[in-house]
């Protein structure tokens, strides 16, 4: 009958997951560079998140970089937590970031030559980003609720469409004067950049939006009747229907709201990081948000911390090519191994619980 494990056992499984992830990562390091001890690489990644190898010590610039990477991950994870609550696998998250960025760029392009105050232009651009993400997500939602297309396939398809749209814009209507290039559209003038702190790239406004988005997801899911209904629809749509809820409506609301938060991530990539539209505008933060959600078991409580940790790994690994001539994509290996190991040990844990329940029953 015991549905749960003692905290010691739970700790054992969690610790096991981390060890497994470290082992997997070490294996990859060993294969790609047999002469470098894995702990040196991992140590470099963690130190690299807070200091530069040349100077050592705490580098505020580095910390700011981590926070800059944290913001889109927070927003992506927040949006995904909402769609996950409704039982939806919003794989289209990357496309929603991209469309947020496209809508933002569009509004900024319209307003950069006007006399409107920059604050207004930036505000409208951010709103447009949220709208773009929401619309793209609602497209997935429409396909799912009225077209019978599973959101995983619809989302994946629309991701490719979004990527293509960006490339078309960069090389077509929005190309730089002269010739279009992979480096993106013409940068916006400095007054249309989100203001940053000191000589860092961190914007207070962006940080506020990121934290606000995550707080919104947390409060909605943990403390409102709307969040409860989303969870109900996600847990059992058939029972929700018999209880007089409309599952389709709540799924659409989840897509709209989640897509808006995700779209803001793209918006901030344009207004606060690159100051233009580039082909890789999402930087894979949508996928990372997905990994964050899986690692926290879709519970918002620990999502911000895990996202911060992932951001630190991303920034820390930037040193790798310079210092150890290893590719910085090792960050993805670490993050992916963690999620894989967590899911694996979690599956193992459930299996053990089931065995116990069965043993208790017979």
């Amino acid at each position, binding site marked *: 009958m015991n549905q749960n494990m003692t905290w010691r056992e739970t700790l054992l499984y969690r610790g096991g997951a981390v060890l497994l992830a470290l082992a997997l990562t070490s294996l990859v390091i060993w294969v790609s560079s047999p002469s470098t001890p894995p702990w040196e690489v991992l140590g470099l990644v963690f130190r690299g998140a807070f200091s530069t190898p040349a100077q050592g010590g705490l580098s505020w610039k580095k910390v700011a970089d981590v926070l800059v990477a944290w913001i889109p991950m927070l927003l992506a994870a927040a949006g995904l937590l909402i769609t996950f609550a409704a039982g939806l696998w919003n794989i289209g998250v990357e496309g929603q970031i991209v469309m947020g960025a496209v809508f933002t760029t569009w509004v900024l392009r319209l307003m950069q030559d006007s006399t409107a105050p920059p604050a207004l232009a930036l505000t409208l651009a951010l709103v447009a980003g949220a709208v773009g993400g929401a619309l793209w997500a609602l497209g997935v939602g429409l396909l799912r609720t009225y077209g019978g297309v599973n959101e995983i396939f619809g989302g994946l398809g629309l991701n490719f469409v979004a990527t293509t749209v960006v490339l078309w814009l960069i090389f077509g209507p929005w190309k730089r004067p002269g010739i279009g290039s992979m480096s993106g559209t013409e940068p916006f003038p400095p007054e249309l950049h989100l203001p940053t702190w000191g000589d860092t790239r961190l914007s207070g406004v962006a940080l506020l939006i990121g934290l606000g988005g995550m707080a919104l997801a947390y409060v909605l899911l943990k403390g409102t*009747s709307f969040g409860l209904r989303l969870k109900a629809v996600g*847990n059992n749509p058939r029972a*929700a229907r018999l209880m007089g809820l409309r599952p389709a409506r709540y799924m659409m609301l989840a897509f709209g709201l989640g897509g808006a938060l995700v779209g803001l991530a793209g918006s901030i990539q344009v207004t606060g990081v690159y100051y233009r539209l580039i082909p890789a505008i999402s930087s894979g933060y949508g996928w990372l948000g997905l990994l964050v959600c899986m690692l926290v078991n879709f519970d918002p409580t620990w999502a911000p911390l895990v996202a911060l940790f992932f951001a630190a790994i991303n920034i820390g690994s930037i040193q790798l090519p310079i210092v150890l001539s290893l590719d910085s994509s090792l960050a993805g290996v670490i993050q992916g191994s963690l999620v894989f190991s967590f899911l694996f040990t979690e599956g193992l844990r459930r299996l053990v619980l089931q065995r116990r329940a*069965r043993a208790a*029953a017979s």
Partner: protein
Amino acid sequence: MQVELRNIHKFFGPVHANRGITLTIPAGTIQGLLGENGAGKSTLMKILSGFIRPDQGEIRLDGQSVTFHSPADALAQGIGMLHQDPLDFPPMRVLDNFVTGSPGGLLPDREDARQALLSISQQFGFSLDPDAYVDTLTVGERQQLEIVRLLWLGARVLIFDEPTTGISAQQRQKLFAALRRLADEGRTIIFVTHKLEEVQALCHRVAVLRAGELVGTADAPYDLDRLVEMMFGKVISVGRADPVPLGETVLALEDLAVEDHRLNIRGVTLNIRAGEVVGLAGMEGSGQRRLLRAAAGLIRPTGGRVRFLGRDMTGRPYLDFHRAGAAYIPADRMTEGLFPDLTIAEHVALARQRVGFFLRAEAMRAWAQEAIRHFSIRGRPETPARALSGGNQQRLLLALMRPDLRLIFMEHPTRGLDLESALWIWGQLKNRCRQGAALFFMSSDLEELLNYSDRVLVFFGGRVSRPLPATELDVEKLGQLIGGYGFDRVVNTAAPAAHTEGEAA
């Protein structure tokens, strides 16, 4: 071939599906296997045909002890089974289906197979076109294909699981003739059914299963009362509760029709008044569930009208019924009734009207505790629904019904519950009736139907009886009607459904 089953036991988790079944079937007989849904018939037949293995017990064929590792293994030793839904490959041609699974290797001799198919078909008067696609065949023809295939592969024991569901009267005659002929040739036929009249018309002998046990056997001719008693058990009546005064008409069905791929039920007319309880009886899958769901707006009826509290609600979605004061309580509490991962407190908050946008944890706890006390749920506010026992899940479902309900639809109100919970649930339901709600439910528990209903509708063979006052029925009579015996006398609708009748023979 003589088949002996000795002391067969099978467990599915905590469920003891077969409890020491011992049965000997001589060669050349048609053995009926009778019992309600869930009595263990299918489990036993799956064991005999190699689909599942028994946890204990022995199978003997002509005195030789055998073990089957797979259905193919069982077939190689002479045992073939026809499943209720034919296990064939609809997008393929008849001949392709026929050779699939034959031990001919990668390149079977198709010409040989074609000849075999045609000659065996001819022997039994089946007309199967080897080049037709299986999905253009009727259920009856697909059965014929399966019979021919099993015979070709050398089956000497043939198991038929409810073969007459969904086939026309002519096809049934043809099937019965084929079965008699197979038995005359010395093959052993096992005929699984819940229809008394088919046992009477076809089987040489019958074994009755109830709750996993073999409760008795009988040889033709049969004493029907005894068979009913064996199927449903000796019923101790607890006596009827004091009657509830009836009020205005709550639900009116006018000439309602429902359909699915094998049923076509028409002409159901019924008025249910406030305080009244109407029960739907019949073997599972006879259309009760569809009718109940159509009356609640969960599926669209194919004809007729539904009026709820005087308003024409035909074709309106369930949500409108729900808003107007109806609730539907499904039989499958975990897949349709409750949210497995949500807690009792979350369920109670979901069901409450006017909770406000922000949820307060203390208020949710308090509501949950009130529901737990009032409905005697064994659980805490933070207990997830999946951790509750069946009885407590049902109590929670009752706790979620809003107080001003006018109409309750319910599938199997007390299925799987212990007696105490069952009595308690019915006490609650009767209270609702006293407060002016009508109750429209289906059940396979005869005692429950007779004790609590004011009127009962019996479903059999695609037709529905007129509403029968429960006081005019007793367990024997109701059991016989459910088995189709004497059913024609209580039906005032026309002959069985057109599309079944019109099926090509």
